[in-house]
């Protein structure tokens, strides 16, 4: 028994927020029915495509977000009755679409919730179901901007605009809150017997997530300013990424005030004959380190430039320093730690080819993880096979 086995979920999603939430539920064993329009979910038309074949069944964007699901085609609102049948046995309905898209599909969530009182309805919209911006449309970039996260990301050079952290992160943030609210509602339903409607806004999800930027405004009323690959801060701080011998980068921030990492660093540099004057006793004093910080940074630049990124990462960590190599996705697939933990899994596609996918981000000791099933072809499950048998006629 997996941790979500027995949970029945119907997903109507036109963006990765709803699809990611559904995938995670499916990954943990929920029975996930993805309802798609006849032309397929919009993510089927987003590349890259497997082998470059731009067909709705070959989109890697769709594949990524839709493992562990069954695909049913319903032409809404024409086939609303079939959706209604599906919902009679469902625990959760995920609707991730803008308000106008929801209307276009004839989805009246209040009416559905009224008809299915145990159903938990999660509406994921760009800005929420109520409020002056509720009719606004969005994209990942637009949500990252409006929600404030983008304001912290980019380069030291402010003639360059803020730069988007890639790959649908606004939608990923929203998906995590979709999961949280679904389980809050399920826990409540165990006690109350009733479902509820959840009005989740992608905008709100991003707006509560820029980490330090909000507290910097709540407390000192300071605005943070973006810096290259390190925390946005009210005032500039030293660079934190260093190029290495092999053309890669390591991330390392030296906390000057802590004596122990300073000592470890100097020992490490000295072991390679590269500590120069940093071994001199006056560097034991914080004030001296602060006064000579530009010099220390220069020494660090030369120090990392003569090492390979991977060895600097492992040697630095062995010495207790919080340093990391900036891995590319290609590198991540070869990471010895992730391989030892058997994080990646092989997923077999319908043409019997297989590929490596990231595995389960949460491990429960009590419940086994069954692994992922490849994303379904469009409409590969027929709605008739899913409908509950007609109730027996009453009387004669």
């Amino acid at each position, binding site marked *: 028994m997996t941790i979500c086995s027995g949970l029945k979920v119907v997903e109507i999603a036109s963006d990765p927020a709803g699809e990611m939430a559904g995938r995670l539920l499916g990954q943990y064993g929920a029975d996930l029915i993805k309802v798609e329009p006849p032309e397929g979910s919009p993510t089927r038309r987003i590349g890259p495509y497997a082998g470059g074949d731009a067909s709705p069944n070959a989109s890697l964007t769709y594949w990524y977000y839709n493992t562990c699901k069954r695909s049913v085609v319903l032409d809404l609102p024409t086939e609303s009755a079939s959706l209604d049948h599906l919902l009679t046995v469902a625990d959760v309905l995920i609707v991730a679409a803008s308000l106008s898209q929801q209307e276009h599909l004839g989805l009246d969530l209040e009416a559905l919730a009224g008809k299915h009182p145990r159903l938990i309805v999660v509406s994921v919209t760009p800005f929420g179901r109520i409020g002056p911006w509720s009719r606004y449309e969005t994209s990942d970039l637009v949500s990252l*901007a409006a929600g404030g996260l983008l304001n912290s990301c980019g380069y030291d050079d402010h003639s360059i605009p803020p730069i988007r952290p890639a790959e649908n992160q606004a939608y990923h943030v929203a998906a995590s809150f979709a999961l949280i609210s679904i389980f809050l509602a399920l826990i409540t339903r165990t006690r109350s017997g009733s479902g509820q409607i959840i009005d989740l806004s992608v905008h709100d999800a991003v707006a509560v997530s820029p980490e330090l930027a909000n507290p910097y405004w709540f407390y000192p009323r300071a605005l943070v300013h973006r810096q290259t690959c390190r925390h946005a801060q009210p005032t500039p701080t030293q660079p934190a990424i260093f190029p290495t011998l092999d053309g890669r980068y390591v991330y390392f921030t030296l906390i000057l005030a802590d004596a122990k990492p300073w000592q470890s660093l100097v020992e490490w540099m000295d072991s390679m004959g590269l500590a120069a004057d940093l071994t001199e006793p006056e560097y034991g004093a914080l004030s001296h380190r602060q006064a000579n910080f530009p010099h220390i940074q220069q020494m660090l630049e030369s120090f990392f430039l003569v090492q390979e990124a991977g060895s600097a990462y492992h040697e630095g960590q062995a010495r207790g320093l919080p340093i990391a190599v900036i891995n590319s996705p290609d590198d991540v697939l070869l990471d010895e730690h992730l391989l030892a933990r058997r994080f990646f899994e092989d997923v077999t596609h319908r043409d019997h080819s297989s590929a490596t996918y990231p595995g389960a981000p949460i491990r429960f000791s009590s419940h086994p993880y069954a692994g992922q099933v490849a994303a379904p072809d469009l409409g590969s499950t027929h709605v008739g096979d899913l409908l509950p048998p007609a109730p027996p006629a009453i009387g004669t």
Partner: protein
Amino acid sequence: MGVGSVATRLLADFGAEVIKIEDRARIDMPRRLPLYKDQVRSFGQEVSDPDPDRGGLFNNYSRNKLGVTINLRTREGRELAERLISVSSVVTENFAPGVMERWGFIYERLRELVPDVIYARMSGYGHSGPHQHYRSYGPVVQAASGLSYVAGLPGREPSGWGLSYMDNMAAYYNSAALLMAIWKRQSDGLGTEIDVAAVELGVTLLGPILLDVTVNGHTTRRPDYPTGNRLEHPNAAPHGVYPCAGEDRWVAIAVFDDSEWRRLVEAIGHPAWTDLDIFSSQDLRHAHQDELDEHLSLWTSRYDPIEAMELLEARGVKAGAVQNPQDLNERDPQLSMRGTFFEMDHPVIGPARFEGFPALMSGDHPDHWRSAPLVGEDNDYVFGEILGLSEQERAGLLDAGVI
């Protein structure tokens, strides 16, 4: 640091009695970081002897929780913690691997105390594997998991993240994991040990680009990757962040197809350049983004970012002001109407704002009943009322440095 606190904050918001154990001798990092109401200090400029009750970040992370102090490095402290665990149903920790083991708080022991305990272990690298002891915080996780690499302009260093994105995301996934386990336990009565490694979660969030590598063998170690604010898939254009009136102010605009393009053209008053042949189809616009961006920037730079956003969105164009926290808190009419941010008073800090829950639920509502506890503020309630220790016993523990 933030992961464990934010993960349990969500449970506290929704009514769980969350008891945070702190150590008087080793003050929690968010209590020491320099987020004060009257002083602007970047990280790295901490004051030398900070008042632990003044730290804004701790207030932010630990609202709605009870706070006690226990010195877990003493035998009496560990015994006291075991008594507290015995009357609890969930235990969470966010230490480097090995710390809880050293104190004897392993899952098997916790199960002896609470047979159906849920024990959530929130770490950077997880509790197995060759790098489990690596030191991590947000930026380290982001670098190691590939999330920093995929952000930036082509042909230069990554711009990565200006925040510990993975602290938040690991916290959210840990909240979800706890709720999943609690929900499951309601029906099958089973406890569980949860292991969330932030690095693995980071890889999970890498998105479809990972399959482009594993399915198509298309490397990301190439000079035209990553693509900054532009998209390779789908062929959106314009798709970027454009200058606005004011210093360092910007608006994001995203156009995915011909009908969105026509709405943009109309919204900006149909200037002549929009009729150029090089902008006459989505493919052509995607191929000529440099020229497109140059023209569009001339239009955006006349507007305040929120004005530009509202003007464009009112005409069906996807646009978002690059809002800063002041905009979010003082101008954004949507967040204001939905009450996403809220305020609570704190006895030392005074009134402070907080980030709330991003969904309005018809059946469940957060209960914001207090700001973060002062150091040891709830020792009497928790050790007295909940565990039944007498006043003398508590005084003895205090004198002995146990609480």
